[in-house]
């Protein structure tokens, strides 16, 4: 029982941060039809900006430590508001009419540029934002000590998923987004400002990736190389869940998190390839993913 509960809890913790990042990738694909290879860079930039903001805040004393975490999350909003419109309007829009492969190559180029730009700005030395990691104390679970912050991430991930679903399905703006997804030309003909929806959707996607970086920054050493690992995991999630499906991203994150946890606890030699094995199986059995539909993008 203890082993099962530990596998599930570890899997949930892993799934939570993966979902926050991957759902941004799937949102961008769903709306813009862009498979964004640079998505991991937004995660990395979010982590760097949040760690820099935390460093600035905590350097002045820590009379109210929780405020540091809020500042970290707030700083990622700035990242999204600056980078989102800049990249969507300044770069991606010029390639919408081109082949999808060209767009993939453009985002790959963007990945390389942002990787070097990150190094140029923050250098190769690590940044830390460890103070928030101890904010929520420790929780004992079946005799094992867990950091409260990790459990809080599960709550944050659930909140992100629910808010995103509500925003898309229960608000007028969300329904406009859904209309654009289903038929961009018809939506435009009906007077929907497609350009604005593209900018907003891309910016939200950037924000989710950056927020994923910000919430994981307190438990890692923020340094070059973050983007690659994250984008690979995110791709695995969206392939398993189905490109463009938020529900699929949630279920796929759970599958990835629990598969990894199961491997580590019961067959550690399989850890390295378990996620990609699940992805390969999915591609072989159901290429459109769990919640994907053939020929029609869905969100």
């Amino acid at each position, binding site marked *: 029982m*203890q*082993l099962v509960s*530990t596998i599930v*809890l*570890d*899997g949930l*913790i*892993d799934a939570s*941060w993966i979902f926050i990042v991957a759902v941004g990738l799937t949102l961008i694909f769903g709306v813009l039809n862009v498979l964004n290879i640079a998505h991991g860079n937004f995660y990395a930039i979010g982590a760097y900006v949040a760690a820099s903001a935390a460093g600035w805040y905590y350097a002045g004393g820590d009379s109210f430590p929780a405020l540091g975490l809020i500042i970290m999350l707030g700083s990622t909003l700035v990242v999204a508001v600056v980078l989102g419109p800049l990249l969507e309007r300044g770069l991606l829009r010029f390639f919408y009419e081109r082949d999808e492969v060209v767009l993939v190559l453009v985002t790959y180029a963007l990945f390389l540029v942002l990787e070097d730009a990150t*190094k140029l700005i923050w250098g*190769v*030395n*690590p940044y*830390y934002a*460890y103070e928030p*990691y*101890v904010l929520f104390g*420790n929780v004992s679970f079946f005799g*094992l*000590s*867990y*950091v409260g912050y*990790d459990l809080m991430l599960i709550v944050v991930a659930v909140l992100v998923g629910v808010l995103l679903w509500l925003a898309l399905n229960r608000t007028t703006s969300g329904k406009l987004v859904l209309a654009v997804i289903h038929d961009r030309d018809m939506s435009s003909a009906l007077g929907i400002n497609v350009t604005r929806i593209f900018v907003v959707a891309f910016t939200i996607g950037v924000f989710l990736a950056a927020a994923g970086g910000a919430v*994981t920054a307190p*438990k*890692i*050493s923020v*340094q*070059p*190389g*973050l983007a*690659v*690992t994250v984008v690979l995991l995110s791709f695995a999630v969206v392939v398993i869940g189905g490109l463009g499906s938020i529900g699929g991203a949630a279920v796929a994150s759970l599958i990835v998190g629990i598969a*990894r*946890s199961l491997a*580590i*606890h019961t067959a*550690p*030699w399989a*850890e*390295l390839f378990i996620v990609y094995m699940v992805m390969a199986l999915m591609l072989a059995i159901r290429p459109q993913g769990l919640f994907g539909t053939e020929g029609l993008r869905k969100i």
Partner: protein
Amino acid sequence: MPEARMLLKSAFAALSLFTFASPVLAENQSFKLGIVTFMSGPGAESFGVPAWEAAQMLSAALNEGGQLPAPYDKAGFGGMTIELSVIDENGGTTKQVQELRNGYERDGLDAVIGYISSSNCLAAAPVAEELKKLLILYDCGTPRIFEDGSYRYVFRTTAHATMDNVALARYLAKRKIKFDDIASINPDYAYGRDNWKDFQQSAAALNPNAKSKLELWPKLGAGQYGTEISALLQANPQVIHTSLWGGDLQAFVLQAAPRNLFKNRHVVITAADHVFQPLGNRMPNNVIFGARGSNGLFAETSPTNDWLVAAYEKKHPGGFPAQSYYRMTQSILGLKLAVEKAMALNGGKKPTAEQIADALTGLEWDAPSGRIKMALGNGHQAIQSNAIGVTKWDPASKRMQVVDVERFDAECVNPPANIKAEEWIAQGFPGAKCN
């Protein structure tokens, strides 16, 4: 008159002969030294950039002359100015092989000191040998270079990684720390696999009851270790072995310490000194660690070490040099002595690669980390002493200290010549000379 002309011709010929035959003294020449190390990528912050910084600092001091204690007080390499250049080791083995060829053939490098990655070392060595150019490996850990191959122009001026794990196991035995149940978390590539194999076999050789309870293999650069930490806590071994390094080690410590992984058991780390400064007091106390030689906090007072520490502190007030600084420094100092020895035998002229190789074969010298002996691989592979200790944070100086140090002679933790490291450990360390 013809006699006079003949005399003049003869005098001119003799003068020409004298001019061309006279030694071209090396005083105004330069020695082009290429440094290959990680300037980007995951290995840059912990190892690559500090090593390059050490190379720059040392060559500047050597070029000035009289800055270092004897026998390193002569300017440059025997009067030749050291001209440094750097090649980024990031980018894969194929790129490194091409860059090395370019360095020798296009840029005219006289020697190259380089490589952190074992796979790059293994790929670069045959290239240098083929081109008959001097290559000094300064960091990579695999023992296979000189155990599986034989070279004339290739050297490694630092010990290979076997001694790190032999010393850790010997430390546990010497300090009577129980290590019947062992678990491990090592990066899933050659370095991590080799480290675990050496440690596991050394532990078994010293304690027949030692058995592995759990082996974890996160990929290099994983960054998140929550599930691995749960598995380690559940296994509850007496000793946890790890060769994680750089950002991976820092992330592991940051995530494991709040979950009490470092309490009620011993965590042993093959190389941890390079994360002390970035982690500060987040590095827990009572962690058993090494620094891949008597480097950094383990280095004993000596004229060269005192110089290195003072020079480092001048550049980084309040800091201390970690292992990569030491490995680069001892490599350059060894090369300097070899060049000067070869130069002396060459009548003061700039020596050839062959002459320097002959001078470096079997050489011994004093480095900041102690005595370096080119004792293995027919005089091409160095051995050096090692030390293991325990972390203790000093709040007053706000620096990590090392306590409960055990020192091991080079011949105690390195295999003798003509036996492979793996066989030496499996046979129970025959010929080991321990103090």
